[in-house]
């Protein structure tokens, strides 16, 4: 068993970064995510593992530092919260276009604009459907506990390097600020230069006489070449959609009604589930863990016994569009959300479920 600690979600991200053998973290403080960089600065991993921790002058600088460092095959990451992540979107599109692995963390707060520092899930569209320009996709993981904040850092790097693609951990102010018990994974050493050359032959590690130059770019002005690059990306995305969907199904086997949620909302909805089951309502919960690729098939498979679905999100309704696409109109899909940093209670969700889905 790994080391047990009581940690904030944001601190767990920082500790997991050190333990995952990350080479560099570039970031800029913003509530409710600042504990990530605060933790790293206090831990001084540069004295232990050699990991670089740098406070950049802005989020734009952070993401371009990530772009540059990722091009060398190093494990690099950044973290921010909504307004800061918006600033990063240009860089993310370039990183996706250049097919570079890296990890981004968004501890989401309410928007639009500066919005509020309170929790929200209103960045689902930005994370899963672009945000930057062009036909690209990020792998998006949604932790629902401090444990997953730690575990998903490791997982996100594995996926990012497996597919040469940016991966995002889409968290929110609840999971970032809360403390829970976390079992830390054993530290991995940072990769050596030899390992990087072997693992990432595309990386700009210095040109030896034995190979051509490695060029990292998203640019190609020849349409027939650029189209091929795009097709290659789309083929890669299709493989990710085939192989990397993750979700958790709670009490779904005999469920007549289903809640679909992710992150902090899934935690709140789990309490709704407990209350509903105690009242004899056959409710199940499908928690999306990967938001892209989305568990469409897993939702569709439940429709042989599920009669209605309620999607709950701390937004005006974003993931619910993907749920509706998955359901293809076969059952009623209703939505309930709160915005601006307000959070629903388990009882509130149950009332909506009864009104909109069960129809009491």
């Amino acid at each position: 068993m790994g080391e047990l600690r009581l940690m904030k979600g944001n601190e767990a991200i920082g500790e997991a970064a050190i333990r995952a053998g990350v080479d560099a973290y570039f970031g800029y403080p913003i509530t409710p995510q600042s504990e990530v960089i605060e933790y790293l600065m206090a831990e001084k991993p540069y004295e232990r593992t050699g990991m670089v921790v740098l406070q950049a002058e802005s989020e734009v600088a952070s993401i371009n530092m990530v772009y540059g460092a990722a091009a060398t095959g190093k494990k690099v990451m950044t973290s921010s919260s909504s307004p800061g992540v918006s600033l990063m979107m240009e860089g993310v599109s370039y990183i996706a276009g250049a097919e570079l692995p890296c990890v981004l963390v968004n501890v989401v707060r309410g928007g639009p604009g500066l919005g509020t520092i309170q929790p929200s899930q209103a960045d689902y569209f930005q994370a899963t459907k672009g945000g930057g320009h062009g036909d690209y996709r990020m792998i998006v993981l949604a932790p629902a506990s401090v444990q997953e904040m730690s575990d998903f850092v490791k997982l996100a790097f594995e996926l990012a390097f497996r597919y040469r693609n940016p991966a995002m951990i889409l968290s929110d102010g609840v999971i970032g600020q809360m403390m829970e018990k976390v079992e830390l994974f054993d530290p991995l050493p940072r990769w050596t230069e030899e390992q990087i050359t072997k693992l990432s032959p595309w990386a700009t590690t210095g040109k030896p006489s034995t190979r051509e130059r490695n060029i990292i770019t998203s640019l190609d002005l020849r349409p027939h070449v650029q189209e091929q690059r795009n097709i290659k990306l789309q083929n890669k995305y299709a493989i990710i959609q085939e192989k990397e969907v993750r979700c958790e199904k709670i009490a779904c086997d005999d469920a007549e009604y289903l809640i679909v949620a992710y992150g902090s909302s899934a935690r709140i909805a789990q309490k709704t589930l407990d209350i509903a089951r105690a009242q004899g309502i056959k409710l199940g919960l499908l928690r999306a863990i990967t938001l892209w690729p989305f568990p469409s098939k897993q939702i569709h498979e439940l429709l042989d016994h599920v009669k209605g679905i309620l999607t709950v999100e701390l937004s005006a309704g974003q993931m619910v569009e993907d749920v509706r696409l998955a359901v293809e109109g076969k059952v009623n899909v209703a939505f309930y959300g709160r915005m601006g940093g307000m959070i629903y209670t388990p009882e509130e969700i149950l009332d909506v479920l009864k009104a909109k889905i069960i129809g009491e």
Partner: protein
Amino acid sequence: MTEEIIIAGFGRQGVLSMGKILAYSGIMQDQEVSWMPSYGPEMRGGTANVTVILSDERISSPILNFYDSAIILNQQSMDKFEQSVKPGGVLIYDGNGISRHPARTDIKIYRVDAADEAARLGLTKIFNMIVLGGYLKVKPIVKLENVILGLKKSLPHRYHNLIPDNEKAILRGMEIIEEVKV
């Protein structure tokens, strides 16, 4: 066993750290725990609160509407959380600065005048541990030895010399808490 607690008061009263010590004590006896603070504008001056859950099972929602126990340390929090105690639950408060005392008859109400006691002992910094002691007298959900272990885990090493004072404060809290009949 699941115990859902709200601790609420002013910033600087040690509300968040009391919750943290309680959470760590739960870990020391192999329980699942969650600690969810208010981190919004209220933290930048004014009231602060934290929801702590200790359970033998996986914890679902870290955010709650109703609590088994409320520990209330100022009037604003009394106004906000008195009605949030589950029927049959427990409300513990420090009378210092309270102008409107709790009036519910379907819950158990206890008073622990920790601020006065801390001043008398000349240990104002461990005010929150007197309150915690009072709570643990009413709800012995964690063993005192696990609280001490929890203190060791949650306090930076340089403050470990303060642990005996903290223990003394917890024991004093256990002595002075009194049930209030409405």
